[in-house]
């Protein structure tokens, strides 16, 4: 604190750099955010260096190699460090390349949702009136139909595959963001500083993006970072139901789907195939956990009201 108020210090360090350093320090102070960040970074690195870790064996790297058609999974062995799934698909390969699919699904879907959701929520909340009414009724329609049922119907209509799953999750995901953002904007827009900004001659566009949005965005950002995890889960659920990617694609949902017949093991040994249940489940859980912890950290760090505490 002494260094902060020292005028020499203020002059030597660029204010933006100082803020950034403060942000980083604030972030690193909380062990949970560090764990979250570490998990996401580890998965990110795995996804990035997937071709090094597991060189692809087919032209399409997302096809999991399989040696033979034996139906029972086999336990970890030197050739298959994490064992194999049904039909001898390699577990490690699937998980490593599946990390890429997971990022693709999670990040693309949530980014697109966020973009659509923020735009519509901002319009609805800030301008109100008929526009608000129309946008909110559309979101009501989306909420009226059960999510998974709608997603299944749409995937069937568009056609199977990872791209179809991504498209469907984008189409169905934005209404919750719009709703959350709109309610925050309704609160923010009636605050005095919005009036003050208007009194100093700010235009609507300027008020929307520099005064309203930065003050109303936190819940939506947290929702987004929490949703990266749950988006992966939904995509996995679709794959599990046989509607996602095609059999043998490196996608975590697909792996779980390949393993679902072996969850209860054999009549004599209930845990005979523990590895096909435990390993992919654990990986998915870690991934989701990482994003959730990051979500909380993002709020603590970027909200000026929280960060100076």
């Amino acid at each position, binding site marked *: 604190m002494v260094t902060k108020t020292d005028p020499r210090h203020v002059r030597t360090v660029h204010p933006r750099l100082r803020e950034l350093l403060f942000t980083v320090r604030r972030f690193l102070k909380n062990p949970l955010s560090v764990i979250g960040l570490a998990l996401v970074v580890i998965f990110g690195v795995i996804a990035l260096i997937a071709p090094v870790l597991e060189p692809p064996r087919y032209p399409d790297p997302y096809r999991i190699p399989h040696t033979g058609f034996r139906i029972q999974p086999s336990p970890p062995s030197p050739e298959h460090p994490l064992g194999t799934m049904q039909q001898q698909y390699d577990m490690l390969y699937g998980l490593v390349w599946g990390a890429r699919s997971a990022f693709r699904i999670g990040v693309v879907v949530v980014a697109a949702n966020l973009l659509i959701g923020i735009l519509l929520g901002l319009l609805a909340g800030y301008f109100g009136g008929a526009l608000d009414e129309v946008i909110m009724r559309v979101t009501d329609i989306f909420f009226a139909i059960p999510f998974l049922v709608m997603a299944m119907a749409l995937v069937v209509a568009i056609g199977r595959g990872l791209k179809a799953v991504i498209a469907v999750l984008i189409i169905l995901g934005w209404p919750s963001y719009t709703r959350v953002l709109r309610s925050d904007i309704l609160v923010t827009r009636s605050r005095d500083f919005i009036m*003050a900004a208007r*009194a*100093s001659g700010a235009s609507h566009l300027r008020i929307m993006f520099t005064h309203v949005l930065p003050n109303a965005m936190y819940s939506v950002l947290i929702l987004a970072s929490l949703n990266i995890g749950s988006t992966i889960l939904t995509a996995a659920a679709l794959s599990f139901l046989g509607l996602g990617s095609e059999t043998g694609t490196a996608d975590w949902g697909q792996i779980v789907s390949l393993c679902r017949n072996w969850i209860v093991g054999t009549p004599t040994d209930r845990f005979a195939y523990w590895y096909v249940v435990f390993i992919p489940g654990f990986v998915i859980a870690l991934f989701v956990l990482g994003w959730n912890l990051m979500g909380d950290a993002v709020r603590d760090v970027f909200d*000026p009201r929280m960060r100076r505490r």
Partner: protein
Amino acid sequence: MEPHAEPTAPAAGAGTLAQTRDLFTNFYTFEGVVRALNGVSIVVNRGETYGLVGESGCGKSVTVRSLMRLVQQPGRIDSGKIVLFLNAANRSRGIEIVERTETYMQSIRGSDISMIFQEPGAALNPVMSVREQVGESYRFHRMEQMIGETIERLEKDRQGMAGADPRRALRRMQAAFLRAEREGYRRCAARITAIDDELYGLEERGDAEARDRTHALDRARDRTHPRGGSSAVARRVPVLRRYRRPLDATIHGHVVELLRSLGIPNPENVAQRYPHELSGGMQQRIVIAMALACHPTLLVADEPTSNLDVTIQAQIVELIKDLKRTAISSVLFITHDLGLVAEVCDRVTVMYAGDVSETATVKDLFRKPLHPYTQGLLASVPKVQQVEELSMIPGAVPNLIRPPQGCRFHPRCPMRMDICEREKPATVEHEAGHWVACHRYPGSARSAS
């Protein structure tokens, strides 16, 4: 309204800066229409501090918000006129703003009229640093000047450098981009001046043809945006955008100077801070800085001291009085503190339930209050040597969805007459410069129809 033989409200004169005429502002709520303003007419002259007094909910804030066209949803100015005399060259030429577009209002707000808010803590954006917030005023209204100063500084910088210094080329490039941007602002300003000149002329004619032309001009004015000439692209490209950094430095310099002139200690440091890191008095100074950045002609102060403790109150009042002498022409001061009114104002309007009760100079109002409401207000101010119990006005402010018929004050008035329940009293000039709206004064009953 048919023309009256006698004026029913103070008329605009040569020194008038802002005038509202028979302003009706209503709020369309779920419970019904809240008739917040019931024909408010006030005249603020250049160089005066004008007080608006009344209890909570009497329409003081709605009046000034109407004046700035900042009435919040679901409120609306339903009828009446607001005329501003902002033309520096010809001060008798006013412009009517109820009919103007939002863009027009944006160019006036913060530049010619600005406002200080009641609660300094709430009037500052919590996620913007002080310098960004105060700097916004310059960015909205004084870009041409800011760019000009920046170019000058860059040129001076460049001349001071050795011939081989690579930074010379950089300075030249920055200046070139800024010149292009300034060119855009200049062209835009010239076009707007031309449009405004024509608008002033049309305002005086006021026939149907003039009205059509006015609408066309309004639309043309809306379309005129400073596009920054050839730098329009450059200032959006991530790395090229950096040519604007010297401009940010100029604005920052102005902000720091402004803060210093408002008596804020260590302004460089304060400028970097966020609002919640500052004390209430300091926050109010920042709010004042935002309002004063562009040297407005009219400063609207909406109860600027009600939420501050007494010592800070005194400081802020002193500051506003000082600024009145040096920086701004007129102040419209809203308060419910009669002591403060006596202290700072030249003329005062007392409002009750959306009506103007009485308008007079401070001396007249305190020496010889005419309206029963004003008399009641003054009687309920505690005095130093008071022995007997404090008097008060019985009853409460009426519900403005169903306001009392006739004079809105009649249910609480100790001098009520029969006519008060039936007819709204007109505002009459009982003595020179002393206007009152009450049936007890001759002339009031006559002009009401």
